[in-house]
């Protein structure tokens, strides 16, 4: 192996043939990758391409089945995150690895190897947060902080260990465009200090903007090493996906018609310490319209969805109106019977019961609305009819599954999401409310889901999409409203909406202000 090695003196990290198996699935298949000192290296790939598995092996959270890792020219075995940290590898996780019940300083203290007094840690954290432009209150409880603030803790925690390689896993997926800009400034500063960064993302523009080199993964293999600045976004996308992603087709919005879903002065107090209270939300979604709600995660989207779907009832019956009738006092089945359909954010455990089969999950959500089709008069399940409907949905949405009727948990995220959305679309609902329709779903499945939502609206239904993904909202919506701290802005028609405008609202700026006023964070 060493004979074939090129001369790469000065390499910080040199990975050869790294392989990881999960059962018979090769999550990573012989991955080669080198990282130089002072370089920002992008790791690109779709969901399931093996990016996360790869970096977990670098960080010692997973054990490779084969392959070598050389760190500063020495072959090393990284058996635990502790080992990785000792070498000088730090990681900022995509799903934050913070402890909600502890304070920021306590969280930071936990990752330091040598016990230091709490006061000293807080002081050092404050120092770092100022040096890198990452404002932070060491005594705040993490559960109370916004996602952007949590990420700052993660980064500071990582920096306290003085790492030479920092792994960032999808760091901007939860940030507003402005917060992302601030993060890029921090990264540039780190790079100037000679630290290396492995930057995992599927946002191509971002990678083109800040990364020096890129490695593209597809189905666990390295497809290409390239210079992202010389590539176009679409050439990078082609490498990631393998073929061109089909663009979603959208027609011009027709003139406003009847409002099918109305929300009037909806307010809701926060039910628990980590919840957001909603204040005075007004909204109308018309027939043939797709309305998007943008916002950084944790600004009340979940609470809003619960209120609209009927998981939580409203005090006033007219706070939510479906097809011109008051629905505020109706529960979720009542609202479904009025012609509405809902798809919550979490697929497993919320939209679908993990250990029940697809047909059972179908029956669970539709046993009231389709009682005549699925149940006999005595309430006995018509297995044949349910199985047929499940198959119809799977075919319509191209759900790829093993076996005729597998358990929901056995499906991949994208396929389960297609099924969950297809289950509601199959009813041809007049009102459709979806929370994060394509969160963690690969590009092919995402395109299919988006097209299905547009097709539904073309058929005269009202569609409300809550999403953190701005690209998605700009692609499918006729208007975009922004949720911030439990308040909803007026919808901006898509013709007038820009990333900057929406991004400022996501950061809490007041609309129509002469100068954008960012709220103090």
């Amino acid at each position, binding site marked *: 192996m060493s004979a074939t090695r090129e001369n790469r003196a000065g390499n910080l990290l040199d990975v050869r043939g790294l392989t990881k198996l999960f059962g018979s699935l090769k999550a990573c298949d012989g991955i080669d990758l080198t990282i130089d000192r002072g370089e920002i290296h992008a790791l690109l790939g779709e969901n399931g391409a093996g990016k996360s598995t790869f970096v977990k092996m670098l960080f010692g*959270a997973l054990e490779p089945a084969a392959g070598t890792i050389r760190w500063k020219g020495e072959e090393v075995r990284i058996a635990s*995150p502790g080992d990785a940290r000792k070498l000088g590898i730090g990681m900022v996780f995509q799903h934050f*690895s913070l402890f909600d*019940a502890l304070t920021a300083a306590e969280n930071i203290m936990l990752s330091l190897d040598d016990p230091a007094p709490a006061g000293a840690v807080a002081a050092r954290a404050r120092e770092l947060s100022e040096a890198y432009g990452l404002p932070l209150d060491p005594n705040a409880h993490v559960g109370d902080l916004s996602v952007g603030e949590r990420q700052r803790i993660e980064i500071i925690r990582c920096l306290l260990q003085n790492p030479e390689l920092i792994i960032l896993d999808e760091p901007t997926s939860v940030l507003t465009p402005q917060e992302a800009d601030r993060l890029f400034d921090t990264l540039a500063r780190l790079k100037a200090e000679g630290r290396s960064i492995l930057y995992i993302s599927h946002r191509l523009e971002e990678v083109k903007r800040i990364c020096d080199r890129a490695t593209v993964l597809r189905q666990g293999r390295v497809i290409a090493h390239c210079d992202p600045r010389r590539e176009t976004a679409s050439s990078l996308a082609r490498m990631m996906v393998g073929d061109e992603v089909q663009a979603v087709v959208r027609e011009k919005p027709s003139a406003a018609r009847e409002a099918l879903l109305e929300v009037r002065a909806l307010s809701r107090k926060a039910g628990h310490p980590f919840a957001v209270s909603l204040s005075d939300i007004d909204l109308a979604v018309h027939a043939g319209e797709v309305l998007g709600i943008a916002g950084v995660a944790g600004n009340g989207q979940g609470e809003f969805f619960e209120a609209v779907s009927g998981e939580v009832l409203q005090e006033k019956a007219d706070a939510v109106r479906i097809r011109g009738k008051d629905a505020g006092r109706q529960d979720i089945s009542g609202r479904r019977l009025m012609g509405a359909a809902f798809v919550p954010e979490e697929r497993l455990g919320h939209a679908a019961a993990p250990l029940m089969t697809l047909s059972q999950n179908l029956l669970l959500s539709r046993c009231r609305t389709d009682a005549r089709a699925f149940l006999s008069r005595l309430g006995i399940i018509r297995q044949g009819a349910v199985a047929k409907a499940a198959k119809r949905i799977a075919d319509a949405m191209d759900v790829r599954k093993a076996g005729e009727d597998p358990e929901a948990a056995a499906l991949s995220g994208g396929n389960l999401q297609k099924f969950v959305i297809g289950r509601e679309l199959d009813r041809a609902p007049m009102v459709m409310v979806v929370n994060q329709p394509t969160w963690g779903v690969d590009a092919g499945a995402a395109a299919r889901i988006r097209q299905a939502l547009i097709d539904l609206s073309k058929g005269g239904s009202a569609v409300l999409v809550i999403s953190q993904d701005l690209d998605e909202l700009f692609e499918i919506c006729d208007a975009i409203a922004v949720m911030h701290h439990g308040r909803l802005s007026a919808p901006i028609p898509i013709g007038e909406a820009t990333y900057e405008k929406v991004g400022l609202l996501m950061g809490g700026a007041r609309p129509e202000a002469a100068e954008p006023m960012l709220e103090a964070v």
Partner: protein
Amino acid sequence: MLESILITIATAATPLLIAAMGELVVERSGVLNLGVEGMMIMGAITGFAVALTTGSVWLGVFAAILVGAAFALIFGFLTLSLVTNQVATGLALTLFGLGLSGMLGEGFVGRPGLRLGRIDIPFLSDLPFVGRLLFGQDPLFYLSLLLTAAVAYFLFATRAGLMLRAVGDNHTSAHAQGINVVAVRYLAVMFGGACAGLAGAYLSLVYTPQWVENMTAGRGWIALALVVFASWRPWRVVAGAYLFGGVTIGQLHAQALGVAIPSQLLSSLPYLATIAVLVIISRNRRLTMMNTPASLGRPFVPER
């Protein structure tokens, strides 16, 4: 009269406090061990039998602590290494302990036992009214309060305590931080078992120095409930344990005085009062949520 009532209250509260303090540490690490009653009764029979056989009360106490920890080790091995269901395993441990102690204790029923003597601090314990109460109790009474202070200090002022709370809050993150989740939980579970064993020994060597089958009489369950209602905060457990002890003794005296309330109702008073008061003090939901170990009862299997 009042002084002696207060002393009996302390005697009733101490075993609850010791057992609950152990379980509090276990639950703070994210493990729910419903076997407290079983470990406690094993401590009671062990303490009684060893003290009687060897003639040394302290040997009995230490043996009870060891047996409690050993029993907890069984629970730990099953739930942490073999990842069995914590609720079912804990219940099984309780049933096992009750049965095994009954069998082992058969020959000890009705025999007079040894009593752990009380400490007598000269002069201070002769002070009027508070003297006996504060300065003339049994050593385990002082130990229980010391234990509370130590647990509170450990949890909130030491790095090891911070690690334990981190494991209980989010074991996946703790693992990613390089903390050995399973090892931390093993230690916590064994500490809980040792405390339960000690609490059991208190019953058979101090509270009523004799062996009666099922003599824990549900105190293990009360200790479990105290931990939850005290929202996993050490000093609140003290309040809960003493309140429970107080109402228990109070209602006994009320029954003796022939108060015209059905005795069944009086007997249930300690439970009702404890629940009512602890519910009131845990009204602050924010504080409760901050203190509830989020991983409680969830099995941990590291990815490999």
